[in-house]
């Protein structure tokens, strides 16, 4: 990069985040990566919108009983009186009313609004916990592989290759399908949720693992690690105090982007009938029911849009976070 012409290209104006807070008395302020990222994120309206929707969805999931309680419609309660007994379709077509904001299901007339709200609980709970599991395993093994290198690295890397060679979905369906309704001392929803968290989380760790390993490999050779080492620091100290703080940014970004993948994964398993069992409402399960009633589109619209909005919001926020935390980004 010796060419002088480069000066004219690119943005030559100083970016405010780098230096100054001109209004105050203090001339120059140092800013941490976190502060810089937050400043950038605040400017990214799209990512911010995604983040707000994410917070909204989490609140909906947490306060589902309160929200549903306000309208007084239990998600598993049948409303046969609103169903036309000959066609099995809601009498008014959709059943949308002040009581049933999103209408009711055909056949048994369950309230779609409260089912979608409760569906958010299962979806987000499984997606978050599975992501957490992947991040823990992936970070642990990724750092170990990258830091120690040699034989340890090749064993862990080959293990990741084998995991990535698994036909994930087929395998997950098979595994979720062969476990009976009562196993490992658990039953019902608890068993299904733990099972899905384990399956989804356990097979997704190599994606995080690879990224962490790559980052560790390059960080390991940096001067500050040499400095720590020359001051007498040992393995665990270097890993936890020198490497991990520098790995938090990429881990955070990929965790945020893994959540929507896991939301889709859980929805797919529920759609195929191997997720959380009915009558517990899940978005995927509702879509599977809706396939048979394609003539009443509102039935598939609400759970489908719920999945779409959730995944989109996390993707928007994750993309924004990546741009904000990337020191190379403009």
């Amino acid at each position, binding site marked *: 990069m010796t060419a002088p012409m480069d000066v004219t290209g690119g943005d030559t104006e100083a970016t405010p985040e780098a230096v100054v807070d001109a209004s105050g008395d203090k001339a120059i302020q140092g800013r941490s990566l976190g502060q810089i990222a937050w400043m950038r994120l605040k400017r990214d309206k799209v990512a911010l919108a995604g983040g707000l929707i994410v917070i909204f969805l989490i609140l909906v999931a947490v306060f589902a009983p309160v929200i549903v309680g306000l309208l007084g419609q239990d998600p598993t309660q049948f409303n046969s009186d609103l169903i036309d007994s000959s066609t099995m379709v809601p009498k008014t077509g959709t059943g949308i009313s002040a009581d049933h904001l999103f209408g009711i299901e055909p056949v048994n007339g369950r309230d779609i609004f409260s089912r979608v709200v409760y569906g958010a609980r299962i979806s987000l709970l499984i997606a978050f916990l599975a992501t957490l599991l992947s991040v823990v395993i992936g970070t642990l093994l990724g750092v170990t592989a990258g830091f120690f290198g040699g034989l340890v690295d090749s064993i862990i890397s080959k293990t990741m290759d084998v995991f990535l*060679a698994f036909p994930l979905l*087929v395998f997950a369906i098979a595994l979720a399908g062969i476990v009976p309704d009562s196993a490992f001392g658990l039953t019902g929803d608890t068993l299904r949720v733990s099972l899905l968290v384990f399956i989804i989380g356990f097979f997704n760790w190599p994606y995080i693992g690879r990224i962490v390993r790559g980052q560790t490999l390059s960080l390991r050779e940096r001067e500050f690690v040499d400095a720590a080492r020359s001051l007498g620091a040992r393995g665990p100290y270097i890993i936890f105090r020198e490497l991990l703080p520098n790995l938090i940014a990429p881990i955070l970004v990929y965790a945020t982007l893994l959540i929507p993948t896991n939301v889709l994964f859980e929805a797919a398993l529920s759609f195929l009938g191997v997720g959380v069992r009915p009558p517990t409402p899940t978005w*995927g399960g509702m*879509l599977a029911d809706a396939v048979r009633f394609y003539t009443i589109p509102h039935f598939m619209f609400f759970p489908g849009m719920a999945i*779409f909005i959730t995944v*989109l919001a996390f993707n928007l926020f994750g993309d924004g976070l990546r741009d904000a935390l990337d020191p190379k980004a403009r």
Partner: protein
Amino acid sequence: MVTYIIRRLIWAVVMLTIVSIITFAIFFLVPRLAGATSESLAARYVGRTASAEQVKIAADKLGFNDPLIVQYGRFAKGIVAGADYDYGPGVERCPAPCFGYSFLTRLPVWPDLLDRLPVTLSLAIGAAVIWVLAGVATGVLSALRRGSLFDRAAMGVALAGVSLPIFFTGIVSLVIFSYGHPFRITAPGGSFTPFEENPAMWAYNLILPWITLAFLYAAGYARLTRAGMLETMSEDYIRTARAKGLNERRVVVKHGLRGALTPILTIFGLDLGLLLGGAVLTESTYSLPGMGKYAIDAITNQDLPKVMGVTLVAAFFVVFANLIVDLLYAVVDPRVRLG
């Protein structure tokens, strides 16, 4: 080059062996951990009328009481040399490659899978052609006109595309184009016509699944291509190529795209391999009788040998696709060192 190919082949075989061991171990251990016994497994094969004594004999004869390693050895031998299953009332022959024998349907798994393969192949390859062409073209155009209206619109659609589950877009597409009459362009899901029988009907039945599946993937590929192109187009060698006086088309295609193509090839290999092992969601949304539908049906019927067989065959496709990709690397990316 030859040593590289051989090394890569050996690793593929090792990988398949490991995958098969893990698959076998999991399908051996999980049902038992969850409370199944050798007798309860054998009982599913000899029929409901069998006495407890008969079930016990069958469990012994099928080797359900042998240690895991012995059972795996028998299974692996079956894939190479075929196997005989003696479950009491009779002996069933499962010729090589024996990926298991379903005692519920009294059929070996492999011929069943061969029957299903054309459906999955047609679906995956047809969709792959569409998504690669559409995705890469959109990505390149977006990168070249960064910040333009086209770029922003395309990336907006692409982001929505990767956020939509196929079983949602699939149902919606069926409602609009198939069940609903105004735009009826395709037969309702569930029908598949072999290519050699009637190519026109074949395409007619598959066009909707192709487009829906391709849309999902094209969105991801467009994002990936755009990011890759933005990176390679700012490399020094692009400036060199321009300085040499090459026309822009050549610079973009021969230099820019070629550099951006490597990560796309990697992802493509994985995606196609996974799809060939069964486009589970697409096939069940459109009721196409492919390998993915086979897997789902097997799981619904709790038919373990089928489930295991289809999982292994699916894994084979992924490993095979990865192998091909690694070999192609050497052709596409001049920087790859073989060694």
